[in-house]
């Protein structure tokens, strides 16, 4: 079987779940080979969980400056790995960084770029949802190496323990004139709740929540359901909730089993980020709000009455069950 390169998304200590999804998807196309870009020692730390999820080789592309520059070390590493193994495809998570790395790699190799796929079959045909969920498109690379970015949350990661071969890639020194240096990083604070794009339940609040205090109601319902909290852009812009939780076209795309919209009108840019959720519930006091037309269960009412009651009922049921 040909190799399929997978770019590992990690924070130096931990492999992010979206990488396990890539490894699972990669098995459909060939033998998953993981590429770890980081400071020396990173690949050795991450090898065990990668092998447990089916990586038949782990390439270490390491240098002391690898995490100091934006995107370039990852593009260089993948380019080197492609030249070394001639893979059937390269898979990268469709995160902000991942899409840029994938695009630059495709351009350098004159390969075909498939962006934000939600599925990929054994022939390399990718499924994409475009225009905020109004079309499902299946496309394929027709020239050059397929470089596919996969939307996080699209695959159920599977464990498939294998022996991984450890390999090295010699990263070239970063060209300081052609690369942006990261001089400071402020990681988004991860709370106790599940990661937004990984959660099976997402409860989001909009401008209707009325303020930062009001978001307690949203959080309580999310906690009762074991879900993540999201927010509309209007809520984020008004300072009710931090940007990292924004759902929509310019925020995160989520596709949970259950999405609950509280005090959100349902603008097309918001729908773009949540329309593929399996079940949608909405509470809005305006009977004309577009979100109510989209919901599987729509409540015309005050979120401050409905959400606490729902949270309480769910908690009571959890206590019994």
């Amino acid at each position, binding site marked *: 079987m040909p190799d399929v390169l997978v770019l590992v998304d990690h924070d130096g200590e931990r492999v992010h779940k979206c990488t396990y999804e890539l490894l699972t998807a990669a098995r459909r196309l060939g033998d998953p080979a993981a590429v770890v870009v980081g400071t020396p020692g990173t690949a050795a730390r991450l090898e065990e969980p990668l092998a447990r999820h089916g990586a038949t080789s782990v390439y270490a592309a390491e240098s002391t400056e690898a995490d100091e520059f934006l995107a370039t070390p990852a593009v260089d590493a993948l380019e080197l790995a492609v030249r070394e193994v001639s893979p059937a495809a390269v898979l990268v998570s469709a*995160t902000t960084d991942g899409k840029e790395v994938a695009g630059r790699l495709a351009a350098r190799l004159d390969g075909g*770029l498939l962006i934000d796929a939600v599925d990929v079959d054994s022939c390399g045909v990718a499924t994409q949802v475009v225009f905020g969920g109004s079309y499902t498109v*299946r496309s394929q690379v027709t020239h050059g190496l397929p470089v596919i970015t996969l939307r996080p949350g699209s695959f159920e990661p599977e464990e498939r323990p294998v022996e991984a071969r450890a390999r090295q890639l010699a990263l070239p020194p970063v060209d300081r004139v052609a690369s942006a240096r990261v001089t400071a990083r402020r990681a988004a604070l991860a709370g106790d709740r599940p990661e937004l794009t990984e959660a099976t339940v997402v409860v989001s609040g909009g401008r209707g929540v009325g303020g930062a205090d009001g978001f307690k109601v949203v959080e309580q319902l999310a906690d009762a359901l074991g879900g993540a909290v999201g927010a509309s852009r209007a809520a984020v812009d008004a300072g009710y909730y931090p940007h990292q939780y924004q759902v929509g076209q310019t925020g995160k795309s989520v596709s949970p089993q259950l999405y609950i919209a509280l005090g959100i009108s349902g603008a097309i840019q918001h729908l773009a980020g949540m329309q593929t959720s399996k079940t949608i519930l909405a509470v809005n006091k305006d009977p004309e709000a577009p979100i109510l037309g989209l919901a599987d269960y729509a409540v015309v009412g005050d979120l401050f009455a409905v959400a606490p009651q729902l949270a309480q009922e769910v908690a009571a049921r959890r206590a019994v069950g």
Partner: protein
Amino acid sequence: MNIVVLVKQVPDTAAERTLSEADHTLDRENADLVLDEINERAAEEALTLKEAVGAEVTVVSMGPDSALDAIRKVLAMGADRGIHICDDRLHGADVVTTAKVLAAAVRTVADVDLVLAGNATTDGQASAVPAVVADLLGLPQLTHARELTVDAGRVRVERETENGEATLDAPLPALVSVTEKINEPRYPSFKGIMAAKKKPVETVDLDDLFPDADADADEAGFRVTRTGVVEAVPRPARATGTRVTDDGSAGRQLVAYLIAQKLV
């Protein structure tokens, strides 16, 4: 300073968008086309710099005849000149070709210090074109900027993504893509609109940008796309759901629904 702003004309997101039956590309004939909102912000950054330190601002757009309207709008906001890349062969161009063509157009502008773009378009949502243009031009990519400072030959950016915030630093020349949070774009004034009609806009095609491509055996400059659509289907509208008006028991009704759906 010489600044190039990359702008794209996109279908108005407020309107319905359709894919053409014939080739699964965007049906532009049936769409309301506007200058992408985030690009107005990229233009605004360029014009702010122009006012602060002095700059010549060139607007570049690749698109059909109608893309000229997008260029004129940025000229009306205050940019100096435009380059319109218009060629029927570019219909359906993929990210790689789009970036190659834009990079070639930027190369025609002398001594560029800064290339500005939006961080994502509302139609393609690739969010990749600016990074690829930077790679092709050998420029540092400072993408997804919420704040931009240019000082003493260097550029600094506050980057905001789903993973948090970062400060980026690089020497000029550089490419910066901006998010919708960076500023509030100005409206073109009546005077600006009148002046824009007289500002120079150069129309170029692939032969102008890649004069040697014909001789080039692999014709790389002309490969329009490296991907093909196998199938495009409109997603079925969601089935009409249940609708209730809260009479004080909606929370309890919802929980019953969630139990029935095995969601709790």
